[in-house]
């Protein structure tokens, strides 16, 4: 009977001399995995143009209706994004968002990406709505070339015939 108790005590005693597995948050932060879904970022192309073309597919794919996109026509002289339209308003309600990543999966231009920032707190409901300027990355942090199909739309040239892969 007593022997069994000591068997357990031996286990706990052994762990007394081992390194603890706990992390002293917030002084030390646990690194997240590559696929971790945290705060959203709106990306840009390498030349600084916004990737978002205002198609609202993220908004349609969102299971919790957290995204509001109001698209507007691009100014041909000074376009905000390649193609015909851009997002004039882009808002995410972080209280509604469930970080499922459906918006990222749906985005045809990889404009919205859930990044690794997970410390999101606010004092009131109003500040929980993240606007476009809070989500957009700086112009020098763009990546990738504009796909040809969007280039052609921006130049107001007639669209090429659809290439269908069957």
């Amino acid at each position: 009977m007593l022997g069994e108790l000591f068997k357990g005590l031996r286990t706990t005693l052994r762990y007394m001399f081992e390194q603890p597995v706990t992390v002293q948050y917030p002084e030390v932060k646990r690194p997240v995995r590559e696929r971790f879904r945290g705060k959203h970022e709106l990306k840009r192309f390498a030349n600084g143009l916004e990737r978002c073309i205002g198609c609202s597919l993220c908004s349609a794919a969102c299971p919790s209706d957290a995204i509001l996109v109001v698209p507007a026509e691009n100014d041909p002289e000074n376009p905000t994004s390649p193609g015909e339209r851009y997002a004039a308003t882009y808002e995410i309600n972080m209280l509604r968002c469930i970080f499922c990543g459906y918006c990222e999966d749906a985005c045809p231009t990889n404009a919205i990406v859930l990044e690794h920032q997970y410390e999101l707190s606010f004092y009131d409901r109003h500040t929980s709505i993240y606007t476009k300027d809070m989500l957009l990355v700086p112009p020098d942090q763009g990546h990738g070339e504009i796909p040809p199909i969007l280039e052609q739309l921006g130049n107001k040239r007639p669209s090429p015939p659809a290439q269908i892969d069957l």
Partner: protein
Amino acid sequence: MTTLTVPSPREITEPARSGNKETMVLNMGPHHPSTHGVLRLVLELDGEVVVNVAPDVGYLHTGIEKTMESKTYQKAVVLTDRTDYLAPLSNNLSYVLAVEKLLDCEIPVRVQTIRVLLTELTRIGSHLVWLGTHALDLAAMSVFLYAFREREEILDIFELVSGARMMTSYFRVGGLAYDLTDDFLPTVKHFLDHMSDHIDEYEDLLTRNPLWLERSVDVAPISAEDAIAYGLSGANLRACGVNLDMRKLIPYSGYETYDFDVPIGKNGDNYDRYLVRIAEMRQSLRIAQQAHQRLVDMGPGPYVTADRKIVPPPKHEITHSMESLIHHFKLWTEGFKVPRGDAYVGIESPRGILGTYLVSDGGPKPYRVHFRAPSFINLQALPHMARGRLVADLVALIASLDPVLGEVDR
């Protein structure tokens, strides 16, 4: 055969109000650490002995089943995570299998193997929470710390593969959300290799521990006949000696090809439920090891079905294929249509038989989704098992039944 009634709170509070009863009415919960969530229990006590208990559920009702009716089939997957939040992938699987049954779509073997591997890890993770909190309720603190240490590794695997620790939504209709990462299999291998030693450790702390035996042997037993009458399932039923496991009875996702045993108890008391769940963790490890080996042998492969009418095309295609672009937009906005009819799929979740009953009217959104929630049904037997026992045993019994209130109330 017992009468299959579950007392309502009013049945206990009303007679007490008349004032000519010797017993005392005590409210336990909804905010009580030992009810494992927002479960309210109305106790009728004679001294320290429980005369009657009325579980009052519904404090965590979130209307998940109803909300699913307004989401497309693919979008509703994220809601299933939130029913039994300790086993999100089991919920995903039950729902996804029901939709796939109606769609009659072919799921690649590799996908099924990944699903089996991850649901078995879910089972281990869920049982670790049960073990930790059960021991904690009986004042064994260290088991809780060790169990959560290993659970952290499982959650890390989920984060690695799906991007979220708990609300994974990794199983989607037609396959998986993303393919496995390169470091997935080595990470799982590392976990599977040392988990068995950790289970030995928990057993060292508890299985023969005289204090643990004192608190759990012959505490709140239920006979096999009563357990069946109440509709218990999972480890709670198997602890009574009934061999019922959906993985053996109606195999899904290829469980019939895995070599594993179903642990059976005898007395149906807290101790047998403990032994059965511990043995189940070892069996889950066995299945996970086999699934892992198969994935290593299989190598890379498809992670979704080939049916483009269900799963959106790969993203790189949509910049040059108009057909793919149309499919992509169509599936993310309107979703796919599911043939008219109904389907029921029951799987063995960590808590018991988790069934999804799905009715489709032929549209892109489910007409009705209902979950046969094992936690809810297991909880119905609580009054029957608690009567005549001490309050301290009731605390142990709730932990032993392992209800998850998110699933009880949905």
